[in-house]
C-alpha cells in the first residue's frame, strides 16, 4: 500500500491501538522526540505522551473516531476531523479541559494535523471545533 490508502490503514491501526489503551501499540507510532500540542496537554517526547495518557486512562475511557481523513500523497502529513468521546470512570476535578464527575460523558469534534517521518508522528497539533457534555449515566 502507498499514498493515502496506505496512510489511512496505518492511521486506522494507530487509533485501534489508542482506543483499546494499548500503550505499547500506539506508542510505537510516535517518534522519540514527537511534539504533542493537544487540547489537554502540550508535551514533547514519546515517554511524556504515554505518561500523559496513562494518567488520562485512570480517569477516563476515551474513544476517537475518524470523521474526515486526508493524507498527503508523500505520506508526510495527515489532516483529520476526529470525534472524541470521553466517559469518566472516576471524578477528575483537575481535568485540564474542565472537571468531570464519574459517569459524566463529553463529546468533541477536533481537527488535527499530524506531521510524519518514516511512518512515525513527529508533531501532533489539534484544534477544538465543537464540544458537548452529557448527563451522568
Amino acid at each position, binding site marked *: 500500500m502507498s499514498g493515502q490508502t496506505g496512510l489511512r490503514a496505518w492511521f486506522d491501526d494507530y487509533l485501534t491501538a489508542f482506543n483499546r489503551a494499548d500503550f505499547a501499540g500506539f506508542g510505537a507510532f510516535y517518534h522519540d522526540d514527537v511534539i504533542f500540542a493537544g487540547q489537554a496537554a502540550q508535551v514533547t517526547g514519546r515517554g511524556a505522551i504515554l505518561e500523559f495518557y496513562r494518567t488520562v486512562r485512570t480517569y477516563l475511557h476515551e474513544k476517537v473516531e475518524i470523521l474526515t481523513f486526508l493524507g*498527503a500523497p508523500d505520506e508526510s502529513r495527515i489532516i483529520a476531523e476526529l470525534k472524541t468521546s470521553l466517559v469518566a470512570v472516576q471524578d477528575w476535578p483537575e481535568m485540564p479541559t474542565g472537571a468531570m464527575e464519574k459517569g459524566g460523558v463529553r463529546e468533541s469534534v477536533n481537527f488535527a494535523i499530524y506531521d510524519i517521518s518514516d511512518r512515525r508522528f513527529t508533531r501532533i497539533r489539534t484544534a*477544538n471545533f465543537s464540544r458537548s457534555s452529557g448527563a451522568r449515566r
Partner: protein
Amino acid sequence: MTAEDRFRDYIAAFNAGEWDRLVEFYAPDVRLVIGSGRALVGRQAIVDFYSEVKAQARRTIEVLACLSEGNVLAAELESEFLALRDIPDFAVRPMNEGDRYYINSLAFYDFAGDQFTRIRAATMVREYRPRPE
C-alpha cells in the same frame, strides 16, 4: 485546475479583498463556521462580515499546508490581523491601532463543483500582539 490550485486562488482573492471574485468561490447557500464558533450562512453574510473586518483591520492569510481528496479540502492557515484604528468591538477582542492578532488554524472545505458549500475552521494558536511601545 486542481482543488489545491483553486483554493490558493481563493486565498489570493481573500487577501486582496476582491469580493466580486471571492463570491464566485461560494455556493449560494454556503455555511461558514469561523474559529470563534460563529456561523455565517450565504454568500452575502460572509461578504458583509469580512467587509466589516477589512474596514477595521488588514488581514493576510497564508496557506501552510493543503490536502484534498474527493470533495473535501483541508488546510493549515496562518492569519494575522493588523488593526488600522482603535477597534473596541473587534470580532476577537478589543484592539488598538497598530495591534496585531495572530491565528494558526485548521479548516475543512467541502465543495461541489468549483464552489465551497461548507467551511469549518478551528483555532490551534491565538496570540494577541500589542503594538510595540
